[in-house]
């Protein structure tokens, strides 16, 4: 109890509060930008946290995570586009309300529901910390192994539009994660004798590549400004009254959000839908749902903020992430030297409390800012994307370079960017890939550790049996709910491209087998088993795809039907997205030649002017402002910018990419 209060006082020190506030602001912004969410936000912050004090870094990271599901309501209500995957259900009633001219009511109801849900989640987290020690002690290697495997399967099954493609994404992530030094024997796997691959591609680079780049490219493809007009003036008070009136619904959905969040692997992607369907099942008069019922906003919004508190439980005590953003949070823990597990509830308890308080305060702060400055913040949705995009690309490059100061990271970034774009367009699951990538080493080690201590007997331990039953039940229930809708792909264009892509994906497991087959069995057993499973899954998907293309009759049997559902994805305009992607590569080349600062100014101006020749004032102002920000950041953090070839011939000042000394 003393520590709990001490952590609160620590958080109210000006520096802590400043970091929390900065994180919250960033979280709000990435929440508003459709597609960008906590994962991209954390990936941007992570390259900077390791220069900070651990407690500052934690306050900032939680600050980024907590309010994304608050501010994502802006685009959900105003434009009918979910700001993050956690507000998909909010669109159902939020957008109709806004069309009826009740946007302000919907927003204020959503923000106050978010606030209550978020604080409730923090409360549940702090209570469960008290009971964590016996739980940690009951989870040996075998139980942890099961937990990780089942988390992976759930993520795969639930984040993909197609069950098999989701699980295959997971296995591809596991295979990519096994690149590098084999943990048992130290043999290099799939490294082509490079020091860079020996450690595997850094998590931050993977996160930025998989999430941030595809979203930017996708939004550029969608074109134009984001929202058309704003009407958020009247009705704030009505929204607050709605929440007070529905307090019991808020409580129920917060509890639900916490529970679902705490199940490893389930995380953020489904919680809003679960809350929404709970609302439908428990309401007598369902006639207004989908047409603008305020309860349809309150239920998912309280649940998706409450889930953060729940999701932190497995993250902190087992190091098992439930969603993409928790993967990056764990990556941040590694950077600042915190190991999840027993330490979090014993020697590092002060840091755990600090996170809980940060979570509660960031939720209050986030909702407060959203309500107080709603008209200013919602203008963010009016900024044309061709102005936001180049700025974001520059920030991503800056973050990437700052992480390791290694040019190879850009190759990693662009490669994973391409994987991200193709995954998104062809309907493979990026969260599953990221979580598989992150957990790969852990799965491999746990399988050896379990084998050494228990053999197969771990399956008969009581906790294991409970885990297996629990997770099987969840998977069956949720997949039934999700894949019952039978979907045919008659109007998907470019099916052949997606079939070719499937064949390209097959090369990964095959080449992994080829390159590791001659190693010691303790070094290749894991990647080869994964590769075999992935190979069969991908082949199966390929067969279904071809059969779907040829419209073969065996696909109409009931068992095969759900394998066929969403086997093809209706992506955006793939060619345009690749075209934007190539412009980022152009930016990379400019970096090589001119160094980062000059290339940034050039890129922003060229990019904006290319889209709108008249906006040279804004392009010059924005690039100048960004230069000032970068200059301030670099002197604050004593960073040296990537310097290009030009720096070898001309003596540039250090803030333009010259030598530091």
């Amino acid at each position, binding site marked *: 109890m003393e520590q709990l209060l001490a952590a609160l006082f620590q958080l109210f020190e000006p520096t802590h509060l400043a970091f929390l506030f900065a994180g919250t602001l960033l979280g709000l912004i990435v929440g508003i930008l459709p597609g960008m969410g906590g994962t991209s936000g954390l990936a941007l912050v992570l390259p900077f946290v390791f220069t900070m004090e651990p407690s500052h870094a934690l306050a900032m990271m939680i600050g980024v995570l907590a309010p994304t599901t608050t501010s994502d309501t802006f685009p959900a209500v105003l434009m009918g586009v979910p700001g993050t995957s956690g507000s998909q259900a909010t669109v159902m009633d939020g957008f109709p309300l806004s069309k009826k001219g009740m946007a302000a009511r919907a927003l204020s109801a959503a923000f106050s529901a978010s606030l209550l849900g978020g604080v409730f989640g923090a409360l549940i987290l702090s209570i469960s910390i008290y009971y964590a020690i016996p739980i940690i002690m009951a989870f040996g290697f075998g139980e942890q192994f099961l937990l990780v495997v089942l988390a992976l399967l759930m993520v795969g099954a639930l984040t993909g539009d197609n069950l098999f493609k989701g699980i295959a994404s997971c296995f591809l992530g596991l295979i990519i994660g096994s690149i590098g030094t084999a943990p*048992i024997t130290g043999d290099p796997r799939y490294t082509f004798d490079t020091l860079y691959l020996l*450690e595997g591609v850094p998590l931050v680079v993977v996160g930025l590549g998989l999430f941030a780049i595809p979203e930017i490219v996708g939004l550029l493809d969608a074109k134009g400004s984001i929202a058309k007009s704003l009407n958020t003036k009247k009705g704030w008070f009505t929204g607050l009254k709605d929440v007070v009136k529905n307090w019991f619904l808020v409580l129920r959905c917060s509890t639900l959000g916490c529970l679902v969040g705490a199940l490893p692997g389930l995380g953020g992607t489904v919680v809003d839908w679960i809350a929404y369907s709970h609302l439908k099942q428990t309401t007598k008069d369902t006639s207004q749902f989908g047409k603008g019922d305020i309860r349809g906003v309150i239920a998912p919004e309280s649940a998706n903020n409450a889930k953060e508190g729940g999701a932190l439980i497995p993250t902190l005590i087992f190091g098992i992430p439930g969603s993409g953003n928790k993967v990056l949070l764990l990556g941040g823990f590694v950077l600042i030297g915190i190991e999840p597990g027993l330490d979090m509830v014993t020697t590092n308890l002060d840091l755990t409390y600090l996170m809980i308080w940060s979570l509660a305060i960031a939720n209050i702060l986030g909702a407060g800012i959203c309500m107080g400055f709603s008209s200013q913040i919602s203008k963010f949705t009016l900024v044309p994307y061709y102005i936001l995009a180049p700025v974001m690309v520059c920030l991503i490059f800056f973050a990437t370079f700052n992480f390791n100061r290694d040019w190879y990271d850009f190759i990693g970034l662009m490669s994973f960017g391409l994987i991200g774009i193709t995954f998104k367009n062809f309907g493979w699951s990026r969260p599953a890939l990221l979580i598989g990538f992150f957990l790969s080493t852990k799965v491999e080690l746990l399988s050896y*550790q379990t084998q*050494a201590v228990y053999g197969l007997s771990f399956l008969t331990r009581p906790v294991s049996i409970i885990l297996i039953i629990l997770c099987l039940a969840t998977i069956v229930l949720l997949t039934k709910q999700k894949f019952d809708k039978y979907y045919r792909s008659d109007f998907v264009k470019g099916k052949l491209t997606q079939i070719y892509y499937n064949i390209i994906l097959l090369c990964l497991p095959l080449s992994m087998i080829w390159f590791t087959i001659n190693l010691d069995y303790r070094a290749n057993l894991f990647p080869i088993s994964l590769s075999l499973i992935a190979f069969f899954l991908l082949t199966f998907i390929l067969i279904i795809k071809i059969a779907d293309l040829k419209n073969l009759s065996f696909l109409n049997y009931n068992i095969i039907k759900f394998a066929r559902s969403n086997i093809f994805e209706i992506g955006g305009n793939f060619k345009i997205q690749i075209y934007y992607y190539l412009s980022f590569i152009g930016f990379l080349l400019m970096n090589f030649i001119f160094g980062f600062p000059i290339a940034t100014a050039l890129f922003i101006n060229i990019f904006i002017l290319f889209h709108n020749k008249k906006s040279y004032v804004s392009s010059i102002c924005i690039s100048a402002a960004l230069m000032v920000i970068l200059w301030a950041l670099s002197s604050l953090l004593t960073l040296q910018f990537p310097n290009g070839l030009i720096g070898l011939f001309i003596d540039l000042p250090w803030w333009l990419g010259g030598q530091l000394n």
Partner: protein
Amino acid sequence: MSLFSFVSVASADVNFSGKTITWVVPFKEGGGTSRFARFIQPFLKKYLPGNPDVQIMHIPGGGAIKGSNYFEKNAKADGTFIFGSSTSVIVNVATGNPLVKYNLSEYRPVVLLPQNTHWFTRSDLAEPHDLSKIKERKLVLYALKTPASADLFHIWIYDKLGIKGAKPIPGLSSSGGYQAFLRGEIHLSSHGAANYVKKVKPEIEKGKVVDLMTLGIIGADGSVSRNPLAPNAPTFPEMYEKVNGKKLEGDDLEAYYAIGAAWSQASKAMMLPKDASDEIVKAYRDAATKMTNDPEFKAKALKALGPFPLIIGEEAGEIIKKAAVFSDTTKKQLNAALKKHKFTYRVQ
């Protein structure tokens, strides 16, 4: 008298005023070597002639090889570059990792910060300071991160103590290993001094855990004394004698000294490049000696660095040579232990 004045003139020639000293740490921020560097940093500025700025440059990656190779390639010998070494940096050299491009044994060490390892087990498995029950067990599980690290020494130690059931569980960090130990999944566990005080001592006081032994503190003359943090626990040489009925000597003693130098005496180190002149080395060593007499240092050192006094001077150079260059007999001993436990990894 004349000799004295000569020396003081020589060190007066070294002046870093207006310069920036770059301290390359081949690890991430927040790790032990980084903390060591950050603690020394302000004192270095205070006591080096000319009070230069000292900046710490972290170059993590490749199991400390990336940063170490960077230092070898880029460090200037004029005293403006120093290197933060640790046991893993040394073990990379000593075990002949082919990616290593730095010749650590020729570097000029300024300060070494020793550490010590404690071994312990559950109270239901053995009496304090007594291995006999452990040796009777068919299966004695212990945590081992990877054989290509200092954890390799565990394999040798358990082998020399005749623990036949010893079986490593791979891929466990010391903290993860300790958790598994508390859950009752592994039988033998070990920790460095700092974590021993923080995490193990409370369990010993509760009666759940008992001390077995410590690595022992090796003096300049080769004598081994007990660890002040666990004064009742025997040192490895004492345990060896009790178990084997003969003194630790010959090849075994040589291997123990090599392991002790790498693992314990040179656990953290600050070094100058190999071409640094004697004057520069002396200026640094003088600054380090003054630092240890600083009242602020004395007040904070126990908490930040642990109870073991810093090693400064020529003695440090001898220890680094011993730690970084394993003799053929020592390598043979380690490889025999690796082979016995079916590891494919070999010391080169």
